[in-house]
């Protein structure tokens, strides 16, 4: 019973936060809302028995990626935006409409799939050990590839950001 409450609370909380990300004119605030949403997501992982993933989510997303975002926002010293949304009322309307239609389609398509069985909590297979096992046997190639990708991105990011020119308006 309380799992439902927690879930609905959490999902409501997360929806509100993401809307915050969308609607808040101040980028810093939207970044912080995003941090909270990430924490919400790690909680969801936790509810889905993916403890390790929750932690990793916290470390990777909340801890590093979004810190990057916040740092960049601070670096640019972005104030509250005058125009937050894209130009053109009709295009905006069209975008929102597309979004809504997409949501409806997604939700409708969920019910096409037959209901899966009960969530088994903490069953034997769902341990981090098996996760690591899989990761280093079956997906070893992809794992190495990711390593390379991250290396490349690191170098890329450094190269990109070394371009001359100040970050603040002279």
């Amino acid at each position, binding site marked *: 019973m309380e799992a439902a409450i927690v879930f609905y609370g959490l999902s409501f909380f997360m929806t509100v936060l993401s809307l915050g990300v969308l609607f808040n004119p101040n980028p810093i605030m939207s970044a912080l809302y995003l941090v909270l949403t990430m924490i919400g997501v790690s909680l969801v992982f936790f509810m889905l028995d993916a403890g390790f993933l929750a932690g990793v*989510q916290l*470390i990777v997303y909340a*801890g590093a990626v979004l810190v990057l975002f*916040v740092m960049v926002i*601070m670096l640019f010293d972005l104030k509250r935006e005058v125009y937050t949304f894209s130009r053109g009322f009709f295009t905006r309307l069209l975008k929102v409409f597309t979004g809504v239609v997409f949501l409806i389609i997604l939700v409708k398509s969920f019910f096409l799939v037959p209901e899966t069985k009960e969530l088994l909590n903490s069953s034997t297979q769902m341990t981090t050990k098996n996760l690591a096992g899989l990761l280093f046997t079956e997906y070893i190639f992809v794992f190495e590839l990711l390593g390379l990708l991250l290396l490349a991105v690191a170098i890329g990011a450094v190269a990109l950001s070394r371009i001359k020119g100040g970050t603040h308006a002279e």
Partner: protein
Amino acid sequence: MGSDIVEISINAAKALAIFLMMVQIVPMLVWVERRGSAFIQNRFGPNRIGPLGLMQLIADAVKFLFKEEFLPDKKRRLLFLAAPIIALIPGAVAFGAIPLSVPIHVEIFEFLGQSWGPYRFAFQSVELGIGIVFVLGISSLAAYSILLAGWSSSNKYSLFGALRASAQMISYELALGLSLVGILLIYNSFDFAEIIAQQQGSLAFQFLGKDIVWSFLPNWGIFYQPLGFVLFFVAVFAEANRLPFDLPEAESELVAGYHTEYGGFKMNMFYIGEYGHMLVSSALLVTFYFGGYNIPFVTPDQVLAGVESFLGLSSTGSSVATAFLLHGVFLVKVLIFLWVFIWVRWTLPRFRYDQLMDLGWKTMLPWALANTILTAIIVFIFRTQWV
């Protein structure tokens, strides 16, 4: 949180107690710090108020309360206020996850005409199977408080301080995480309790098929992971922004770094956050490398048996007694490390920022990787049964 009212209330009380314990330690540590630094610098330190200056803590607290509040203009006020709170939260939550002692087992007892079933109370505010990952995750959130503080006080120096601090924290988080990998390899589990459980008794390991026992050494993590310990120890200093690494709020250059604008109670909150983080770090140190709440060469069961025979209390009473005994042991170890923190602060000079970064990326990280690989190899060689 437990199934019935008793369990819930006790758990809540336990969590509150642990949180208060963390908060209360801070003024004590401040006192210790001031006295310690004075002792190191061959001077007296606060001794006017109350015996040995103990009342100084209360004075400081009162001082912080009545300091004038500076607030930036409306736009940044929210973040300005949020920063100190965020600084507080990770420390408290992380500390809650660390097992301070053996879990207490309470048999069925009658109370107010109702029989309350057997309870098991973990001696920590929340019992998580994925201890390490959770703590690491939470501690990584600490960076936000610094960033927000630096940014919302809207002056260049604090901004720079904040950027430097968060950059430092993130880079050392890397080294922190990697150094723990050695421990994980050895103890094969994320759960703190399990790690501590494996550090009982005296040092015993298999070496080329034979079991070797060195009885003169306790079965602590440090002996398995000496290099890991050193790396962790240094990384923890960086994480907590303690002296060798406290460049961001170094008085001489950046005035007070990111909390120049803060005064009063908000400043106090930052202190709590800082010292809280210090507390958590030393608790982790103790848990991973110094056997947590184990008394060297003695397993908690032997202690339980000893207490029962020595004090003759009922089983719940004796488990409570052993829990608090081991908790005391744990606290002693933690205090020792806290002293080390303070001791280091007042002895080592401050790093330059580039040295700081070089240390973090060019020495700590490679060593951590080396340690991980080495441990992995050894574990692989020793664990597999060479038939």
